């Protein structure tokens, strides 16, 4: 028993505190996750519905109906919007997004790609390329708000409309379930969706250009909203899993330290008894 009893007690106390923090964070993530998850569940069919109407309408029609549908030269002026978290402590969540973004950038080169970043982690990783960062949204901490969503949408669309960008891509994490999620790179603009399979001609009320004028902004808004919700839900899920693992590890560590503490204490008691007994023996003799 080389370690002193006091040192072990100190370690136990500090690990206990850490465990309290991680288990609190776990609970916070769990509530945030369940709140966002229920929103996500409803937003997915909404976004899918709008996409399917749009793709059915686009079938066999001129694509010059809207500036967002206009084909642009590819691989020249690209904007990449990556969605990361503000805080760490969520496992490999941020690293996965950043790695995908780096892959993407290395494919085209820094001279062609500009960045729009959501989340401090992504920003601090790419801050050495500050001149390439067009917009950044920091301090959201995984809280979704319609205001931010609108702002991000306006920035992305105005970059495209002002021809500062010919293509806009989104990199974010898609939520599958609490244990798995997947980083996706998606083309956001120009709108490039496959025409639907319905071979039937639709009646369009009042007329196609009016419907497109309403439908396309709503489609784009739904995509941005969904991307943010997916990313934030995955963030909380990753944090939940990371914190649960940390809490469990702390418990294991505590158990073994408590055993060690008891052994050390017992040993010191035994030693003291031996000292007393041998001292008594010596006095007798």
């Amino acid at each position: 028993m080389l370690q002193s009893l006091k040192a072990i007690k100190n370690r136990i106390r500090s690990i206990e505190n850490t465990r309290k923090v991680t288990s609190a964070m776990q609970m916070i993530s769990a509530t945030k996750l369940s709140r966002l998850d229920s929103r996500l569940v409803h937003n997915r069919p909404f976004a899918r519905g709008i996409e399917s109407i749009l793709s059915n309408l686009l079938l066999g029609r001129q694509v010059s109906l809207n500036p967002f549908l206009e084909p642009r030269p590819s691989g020249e002026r690209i904007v990449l919007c990556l969605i990361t978290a503000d805080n760490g402590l969520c496992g490999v969540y941020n690293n996965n997004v950043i790695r995908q973004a780096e892959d993407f950038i290395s494919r085209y080169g820094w001279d062609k790609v500009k960045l729009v970043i959501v989340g401090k982690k992504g920003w601090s990783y790419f801050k050495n390329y500050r001149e390439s960062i067009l917009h950044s949204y920091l301090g959201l901490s995984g809280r979704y708000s319609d205001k931010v969503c609108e702002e991000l949408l306006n920035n992305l669309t105005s970059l495209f409309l002002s021809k500062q960008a010919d293509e806009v891509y989104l990199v974010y994490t898609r939520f599958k379930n609490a244990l798995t999620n997947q980083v996706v790179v998606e083309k956001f603009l120009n709108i490039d969706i496959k025409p639907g399979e319905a071979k039937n001609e639709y009646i369009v009320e009042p007329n196609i250009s009016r419907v497109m004028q309403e439908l396309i902004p709503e489609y784009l808004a739904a995509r941005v909203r969904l991307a943010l919700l997916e990313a934030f839900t995955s963030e909380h899920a990753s944090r939940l899993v990371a914190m649960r693992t940390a809490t469990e590890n702390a418990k294991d560590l505590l158990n073994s330290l408590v055993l060690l503490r008891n052994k050390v204490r017992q040993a010191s008691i035994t030693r003291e008894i031996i000292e007393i007994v041998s001292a008594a023996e010596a006095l007798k003799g």
Partner: protein
Amino acid sequence: MEKDFLVTILSRDNTLYEGRVKSLNVPAERGYLGVLANHDFLVSNLVSGKITIRKPSDELLVINSKGKGFLEVARNKVSMLLTSA
């Protein structure tokens, strides 16, 4: 010929209605639009107003839509997407 059809009404954060209906009345841009079973393929944008649903039991259900929306009718399947309700 079928007498009723399937309707799904979704808002961003909610499913407002899902089920079979006999008829449907929705606020389109140029006035209210009625939909019965076996309607032709149709896409329309919606404005704010009252959406009236007649269920197969002839019970009426009214949903107030406060924002924009879209309606798609295809093969006795109607989906409606509302931005706010």
